[in-house]
Each structure stands twice: as structure tokens, then as C-alpha cells.
């Protein structure tokens, strides 16, 4: 159990040990975030200004939302590499409709993009859940396929901000109660998905599937349907992210979000979601996205070479995974010892 919001019941040593270690996963990110803001703020106080923090939130909103969706999939011991292509397809498609058919209401365009994302997710879900193609391969395939459709649709065309209605573009820059709208949307998605994963049967069953797929079948869980749902929900969020991308950046072509899937998976893993499924929370994943974006911003403020930033992100990712692995081994060894002591 790794949910941040969970209270610690007074309990046995094993429980406390587990709690502490699993908590550290998310606590670690919070500490890293604190250190990041502290150090960077000390060097350059403007980093902590309202405008700067607002920018970081805005920049991390899309990745955070994708990380939330990706967590749904990774928790089931799968992965979705195709999200960047879904973002590209829906982002470009949405922008194109807005530019060419101004009569279509914005809400319908958004709904259409989400629906398109769901369709893409359903294709992934069918390949992985029903046809039993390993997720890594299936979604690598759809990564190219969706992007190919995107290219064919665009035919080299680019949609500029000037082609889209102002009321749509303002969604990307507007603030509500001092928070950027996009960050607010991501936050609402985060809270909703986090609540569902924790409190609904469907949510817990995703963890069960990732934790022990065979046992999930024996427990009567509709594994296929759940995996389908996870991919479709992830697709829906990618569709929403596509619209957000178009609103935020204004200029979109067929290459939108290329390569973004790796940033998202990095955020998820840094956020303490086990890459082999079964544990981790969307809150951790969102924090991971915030941390990676924060580092990018901080490095810019600290005038670190932009080229070095990628390397630093990579190092951080490896550090997170190594830490995760070391902790897991420690826990295993500690439990082994404890059993050994109990047995005596």
C-alpha cells in the first residue's frame, strides 16, 4: 500500500517497516522537490516567484496528466509507448477541425479528441489484452501507426495560432483562482483518478493484475476487460492532453509530442511506480512529472547548458530506479531475516 493519503494504523513491525519504505518512495520525491526549489531559490530568488512557479505548473501539467494515464497501464504490468502519437494525432486533428470548421463548438472538439484517444487506447487494449501481444511490442507498433496516420492526415500542413479561435487558445493561458487552467485540469484528473484507484474495485483490480496476473484470473477478475479499460482511460487522457497541447502552443503540425512517451515513463518511474506493476500511485507519478519539469526550469535558471539537462534527467532516472531496486532488496532481506528470527 503506497497511497500517500493513507493513515498509519498502529501495527506490527512488518507493517511499519513496509510503510516507511514504501512511503519513502513518494517522500523521496517531495524531499527532492524541496531541495530543488530551496537550492535554486537560494541561488536565484526569482525561481520562487509567483510567475516562475506558475510557469513550472503550466509546463508540467500535460506531462503530469499523461503520467497519470500511464500509471494506470504500468500498474497492470504493461506499458503504453504510443501515447505521444495519440497526443500528436488528437492535438493536430483537434487544431485542424478548429481551423477549418469554426462552426463546431469547442466543447465538441474537445470531446471528439478524447473520443479519438479512447479509440486509439482501445486498439492498444485489444492488442495487449485480447491478442496477448506484449505491451512493449504492441504499443511500439501503434506508436508508428498512429504517427503515420497523423502524417498522412496532415500532409505536411501546419496549423498556426492565427487559424484557431481566440476563445480556444485562451484555454491554454487562462488562470482560475491564480492557477493556470491546464494545471487545474491536470490536478482534477489526478485527484479523480487517484480516488478511483484507491476506492473502486476496478482500481484495486488493476493493482492485483500487475501484482500477480495468474492469481488475478483465479480471483475471478475480468483481466482482459480491466486491461482494456486501463488502455482506454490512458488513451482518453492522451486525447485530452492533445487538445491541451494545441491550446497551449498554438502552432501544431504532425510531429507534435514526438518522443514525449519517454519523458512520461521517466516521470512515472521517478514517481515510484514499479515498472513491473502492482504498486505505486498516480500522486507519485504526477510528482515525478513536476520534479522533472522543475529540474529543467531550474537548470535554465542556473544557466546550465541545455544539452546537459537531458543527461541530468537521465542520471536522475537511473538514480530513481537504482534507489527503488536497492530498497526492494533491502525490504526482501529484512523480511527474510525477520522470518528467520521469528522462526527461532
Amino acid at each position, binding site marked *: *500500500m503506497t497511497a500517500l493519503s493513507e493513515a498509519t*494504523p498502529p*501495527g*506490527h513491525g*512488518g*507493517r511499519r517497516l*513496509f510503510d516507511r519504505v514504501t512511503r519513502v518512495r513518494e517522500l523521496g520525491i517531495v524531499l527532492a522537490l524541496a531541495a530543488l526549489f530551496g537550492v535554486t531559490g537560494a541561488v536565484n530568488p526569482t525561481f520562487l516567484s509567483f510567475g516562475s512557479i506558475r510557469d513550472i505548473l503550466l509546463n508540467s501539467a500535460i506531462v503530469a496528466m499523461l503520467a497519470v494515464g500511464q500509471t494506470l497501464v504500468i500498474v497492470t504490468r504493461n506499458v503504453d509507448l504510443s501515447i505521444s502519437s495519440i497526443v500528436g494525432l488528437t492535438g493536430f486533428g483537434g487544431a485542424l477541425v478548429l481551423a477549418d470548421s469554426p462552426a463546431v463548438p469547442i466543447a465538441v472538439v474537445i470531446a471528439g479528441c478524447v473520443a479519438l484517444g479512447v479509440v486509439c487506447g482501445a486498439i492498444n487494449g485489444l492488442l495487449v489484452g485480447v491478442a496477448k501481444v506484449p505491451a512493449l511490442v504492441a504499443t511500439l507498433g501503434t506508436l508508428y501507426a498512429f504517427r503515420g496516420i497523423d502524417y498522412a492526415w496532415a500532409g505536411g500542413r501546419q496549423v498556426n495560432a492565427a487559424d484557431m479561435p481566440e476563445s480556444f487558445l485562451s484555454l491554454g493561458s487562462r488562470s482560475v483562482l491564480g492557477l493556470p487552467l491546464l494545471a487545474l485540469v491536470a490536478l482534477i484528473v489526478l485527484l479523480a483518478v487517484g480516488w478511483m484507484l484507491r*476506492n*473502486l*474495485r476496478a482500481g*484495486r*483490480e488493476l*493493482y*492485483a493484475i*500487475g*501484482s*500477480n496476473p*495468474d*492469481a*488475478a*484470473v*483465479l*480471483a*475471478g*477478475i*475480468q483481466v482482459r476487460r480491466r486491461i482494456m479499460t486501463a488502455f482506454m482511460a490512458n488513451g482518453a487522457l492522451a486525447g485530452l492532453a492533445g487538445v491541451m497541447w494545441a491550446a497551449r502552443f498554438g502552432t501544431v503540425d504532425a510531429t507534435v509530442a514526438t518522443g514525449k512517451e519517454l519523458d512520461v515513463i521517466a516521470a512515472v518511474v521517478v514517481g515510484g511506480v*514499479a515498472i513491473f506493476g*502492482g*504498486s505505486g500511485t498516480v500522486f507519485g507519478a504526477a510528482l515525478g512529472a513536476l520534479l522533472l519539469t522543475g529540474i529543467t526550469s531550474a537548470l535554465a535558471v542556473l544557466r546550465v547548458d541545455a544539452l546537459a539537462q537531458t543527461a541530468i534527467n537521465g542520471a536522475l532516472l537511473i538514480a530513481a530506479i537504482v534507489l527503488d531496486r536497492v530498497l526492494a532488496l533491502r*525490504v*526482501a532481506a529484512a*523480511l*527474510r*531475516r*525477520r*522470518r*528467520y528470527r521469528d*522462526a527461532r
Partner: protein
Amino acid sequence: MAVLALSDVSKSFGAVRALRGVSLKLEAGEAHALAGENGAGKSTLVKILSGVHRPDTGQILLNGSPVTFGGPADARHAGVAVIYQEPTLFPDLSIVENIFMGRQPRTRFGRIDRAAMAEQTGRLFAGLGVELDPEQAARGLSIADQQLVEIAKALSRDAKVLIMDEPTAALSGNEVARLFGVVKALREQGCAVLFISHRLDEIFELCQRVTTLRDGTPVAEDLIADITPDDLVRRMVGRDLDALYPKQDGVPGEVALEVHRLTREGVFTDVSFRVRRGEIVALAGLVGAGRTEVVRAIFGIDRQDAGWVEVGGRRLRPASPTAAMAAGLALVPEDRRQQGLVMDLSIDRNIALAGLAEVRRGPLISRAAEHARAQDWAVRLRLKFARLSDPVGVLSGGNQQKVVLAKWLARKPSVLIVDEPTRGIDVGTKAEVHRLLSELAVGGMAVLMVSSELPEVLGMADRVLVMHEGRLVAELPRASATEESVMSAATGRTAA
């Protein structure tokens, strides 16, 4: 009318006919035992009743009318609860979540009702006398604790039919007594129970009726009151035991393998023993006692925390299978599909795999040498195959096991370790494997055999070492090793 019944059910897996024409009736308020040796088809029958497998022919009858279980969920909705032989827990989730997964109580708004879950778990644990923290994650629980969680899971279901596939294998006497108390209460409330156990005394204590399976075929259905344990054993075995265990007496020679105070914390402790050339030593014990772990450490797969292993008087480098092989050790692992064979690779290539250095011509592997080596061993072990170039996966379980044996025997080891050498293979091949082991021992090889089958242990071993919870608790020479003496040591009833 029976709550749940099987009518003339057959099931095959590839060429293996697991069940043939089995009929079985589970009546409300009755505990029905299923007896039979390993491989008799008991677990397959359980999996058909629980919706994991579908019968090839025959019917499942629920309250007299035919039903089709499309999966475990269907069986569960029909009121069938199963305690499987192997625990099927979710390591990342808490015990409470494990118990209620897939059918958590919900509040009116669809939210999981954690308070209700905690309350029901508390009651279940109190009834079973379990003292586990329900919020603890399932990862790291001992086998016995996992089994208790499985039991709580099944009992939480208000089942009409409770199926228990060796639920007591890892439990202590107290835990078994409490389990039986709960099961008897359920039975009296009208629950139908199907019970599988290797411990005959448990069958006689709990059940009213017993069906015996042999090689997938039902051989008898009796009222417990009408028969004795000896009758039951005769029905289960139904053949001459001596032919199945053709043990010749070897002459023990020098010590080939010495294990000195081997310890891996939390897994096994202070294990010391010797195996001489010409003898077969069996390592017996319950599942989870640490036997496989000990042989893994001897062979260098896992690192020991303390102690050492000597082969032919020379100490072995720890945690190095390469060193173990060079010293003359061979290990035929427990799980031949995962650990013993490359299923898609041909028979001859599998046989050559452990001795590639010997089939080399310069930097390349010689197909001719590989083939010759395989041909030689295939004949010696009477392997049944179409072509040596066929993938190993097409062979029957028994013949696959012979391929694993051939792979290691081709290296001419001085010490052969076999882990569950006859698990899941047919009776005929079983006898052949036993004859082979016996011949190897007589020929001067030291054989260490891990086996969960008591008749095999008693029939084949010159000495029996018994493990209980990670410790070696008894060493019994062939003459004094009996089913009772081995089992009482394995369940910890006698002091070391």
C-alpha cells in the same frame, strides 16, 4: 441432489490424458475426500470444478442442471470457493485486500468499504486463530501464513461448495485443528466440502466419503466408515510397489559431497550432511521446508551466508554454478520447463547445452558431435522421440525429464542432484527414472534426491534426511525410515 457434480468428465493436455470418465457428487453437508497419488489427476479435477479448465467431454452439474464455467468468476458466482495447493496471493497488496479482491464490500456509492473489510477480516481471523496484521502486505509472508490467508479468503465467501487442495501441507497441528473446526461448522450449515490431502488421518477425521483416482481414472468411491486407511492406500497405489522402486543396494564408497553448516538467513540454517559414492540420499520435508533452496545453494545458484560445500574433498567456490559443474556436480532442477530445458530448442541441442565445450570444433559447435552425443544418451535412457531435431516441447513430460537427465549425465558428474525427479510424469517412465537412478548409484555416483513423494523417498533412498522449517531435523537410515517417522519429523513433531 448433489450441489455440484461431475458426470463422466475427461480432460487431456496434449498427449497426456489427465482425467478419464470421472464422476463425482458433492452433497450438501458432506465432506468428500479425493485420494490418489501425485499425478493421479486431483488438481486437474479441482481446476475443472473451479472453472480454470473446461472438460473435454462430460458435464458439470449445479443442483442437477448442466452448467458451463467460462472461468473462475463463473464458478465463484455459483458458490464455489477454492483453496489452491499453491498460494495465489498478490504480494504488493495487503492481507485484507488479498482476502476480498474482486468482491470487496461496497458502500452505496460504489466505494470500497474498508471498515467492513477490516471488520469481517477480524472475525475470520478470530475464528481461525490467526494473528496476522491484516494491513500487512502479503509479500514476505511464510508459506504457512500465506496458506492461512488463502483459507480466510475461501471462508469469507459464504460458499455453498468449499474445495480444499492440500490446505494443510504447510500448517502446524494447531492450525490444522482450527481449520477443521471451521470446516466442520460450515459442513453442518449445509456446505459441501471437497478435501484433498496426502495425510490419510486427516481424510478419516474430516470426511464421510472418499473417491480414489489412479492415473486419471476413478477406481473407487467408498464411505469412510466402511474402509480402513490400508484399504485406501491399496486403492490409491493399486500396483506392486517394488516394481515402481527397483532399488538395488550399492556399496557406499568415499564421501563425494560434504555440506558443512550451510546457512542462508531466513531460508535454511546450519545444514550439514555427507553423500557417499554409491548411495542415494533423499532430502524429504514439506513444501517450503527449504530443500530446493539447499540444493540451489550447493550448486551455487544462491549465495550462502555461512558454511561451505566440499566436492571430492575440495571446497567449492560459493555462488558459482560454473565452479560446481567443474567440480563434478550436476543439478536436475525442480521445474524442467522453466529451468531444465529450452522448450523451443531441439532435443539434441538441449542435451548438448551443459557441455558445449565438449562438442566444439575450434570456435564453432559441431552439429555432428552434438548429434552423436545426443544419440548415444537417447538410446541409453530409452528416450521416445521421432527425430532428435524435434523441439523438446513436443515430448511428453517423462521424456522431457529424460532429456534433462541426459544433458547432465553426458557430463559424467560425480554427484547428481535431482529435485523432484518424477514430478508430473507417468508411472511407466517414473519406474524407468527410478531404475536409472539406482543403476547410477550402483555404478558409483553419489545421488542426492529431493522428493515430496514419500513412497519415492522410502522406495529409493539409502538414507533419508528430513528438513523442517529450514533445518535438518532427522537422518533416518533405510531400515528405520517409515511413512510415520519421516512425516512426524517433517511436520516438526519430533525434536531434532
